[in-house]
């Protein structure tokens, strides 16, 4: 297909860097949300009133970006380098096919809508 829907799960602290990097390569829009993730990074153990416990789900930020297929690779690369710390828990980038897009305001469709 001609468009991709990229879903990236990153460390919260990396959002600004990723955002700046993406703007730099001309990405004009994206959507973020707070998520709680679980993975290799098995969560962290905390103390509360003398009892130890494990927080399984750690706060992450999810970024969703619809892009023209041509851009997809570049966007993924950019997110990777901007969010990479090498530490466990850095996250994932998933790419899905996007069939169609519509800009509510103008009714533009396809790549123009992004």
């Amino acid at each position, binding site marked *: 297909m001609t468009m991709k829907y990229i879903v990236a799960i990153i460390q919260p602290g990396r959002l600004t860097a990723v955002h700046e990097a993406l703007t730099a390569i001309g990405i004009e829009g994206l959507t973020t949300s707070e998520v709680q993730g679980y993975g290799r990074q098995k969560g962290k153990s905390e103390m509360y009133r*003398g009892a130890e416990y494990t927080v399984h789900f750690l706060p992450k930020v999810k970024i969703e970006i619809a892009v023209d297929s041509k851009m997809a690779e570049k966007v993924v690369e950019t997110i990777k380098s901007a969010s990479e710390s090498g530490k466990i828990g850095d996250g994932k980038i998933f790419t899905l096919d996007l069939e169609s897009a519509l800009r509510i305001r103008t009714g533009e469709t396809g790549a123009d809508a992004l």
Partner: protein
Amino acid sequence: MFNRSISKLPTVGAMSATVFAAVAFIATPAFAQEVPEHGVYILNSVLFLMAGFLVMFMAAGFCMLEAGLVRAKNTTMQLTKNMALFSIAAIGYYLIGYNLMYPLGTWSVEGVLSGLFPAIAVMEAVGVAPDAVDDLSYATTASDYFFQLMFCAATASIVSGTLAERIKLWPFLLFTLILTAFIYPLQASWKWGGGFLDEMGFLDFAGSTVVHSVGGWAALAGALVLGARTGKYKDGRVVPMPGANLPLATLGTFILWLGWFGFNGGSQLAMGTVSDVADVSRIFANTNAAAAGGSLVALVLTQIMYRKADLTMVLNGALAGLVSITAEPLTPSLGVATLIGGVGGVIVVIAVPLLDKFKIDDVVGAIPVHLIAGIWGTLAVPLTNSDASFGTQISGIVVVGVFTFVVSWLVWTVINMVVGIRVSEEDELIGLDQAELGMDSYPEFSKQV
């Protein structure tokens, strides 16, 4: 009329006060310099009014502390319980509590059961004249009632914290009524009503035992009948359920700290003479020192033991320090008061995890703070007050403890058998706010999974 204060006056203070008063009375030149009898009466009443509103504010302190330490899904319920229990205390204490607690010398069972039971509380007439007041050597009846009522309410507040997040609203309020109308006032009459514990020479200045341990015992009995929150103890491990709003919990602690100046200071029961006001002042200073000791010790200990300071323990530590000094806030020096409070901090840091070991689920740490530190504070009296003996202190602790625990346990058990005191596991999962009240405490904030 029998003097309400007699049984509660700190002996040392009392003596010198009396002695001196006597002297002064004779010494004519000095006489003009004395505060006139009416002035003493007025100043004593002012002490009760001032201390009374400070202790009243402790209801807000308990409420915020508990609202901050429960999870968001049970917060509206916790707020409702605190508002309701404070109101119920006003009813129960009015209907029978006050006269059950203060027999004023007339007993139906000598030293054990007030002869004024059952009877509602009656204040002095409007615009009462000096020669018509109940006790011109003491204070206005209404100021005394107001002050004493707040102690009764505080006892009930202690219970609500321990049993939070799983007890039904109405059964809890029913127990509150019985506690404030009957259990608290009856045992309090044994000491502060001039009953057998007072006769014995048991000393408890402001209520480490009479108020705090009683709240703690009632809470413990309730916790045993009620059981722990679902999922709190899972395959041998403790599953913490962090409080949703620590700023509220901290605010609550500061409010309680403030109220305690009224709690302990007002328990001097007099402010109209030089020595009384000096004693009240000592008490203010010592109370603050003990709270500081408790919070600092908890701070340092949690840092050492867990390598991370635990704010909730620091809050509990400050309160445990306050409870520890409550049995004798007058005689210790500032340094000793700080140490007595510091031990309260140790108690908290040790007892909170210990209770979890026994699977006793105390949501806000009320049992370590009010019961265990209350016992410690009562035992510490002889350290600085020669009129106290360990033997008598221990008997007092045991008598009050056994009575309160057993009666509370029975009441909880009966209520449980008749109506059931615990919400369904599903309701507990959903949260009491939604399940029992249908009202969120923070409806707009999205909650983390």
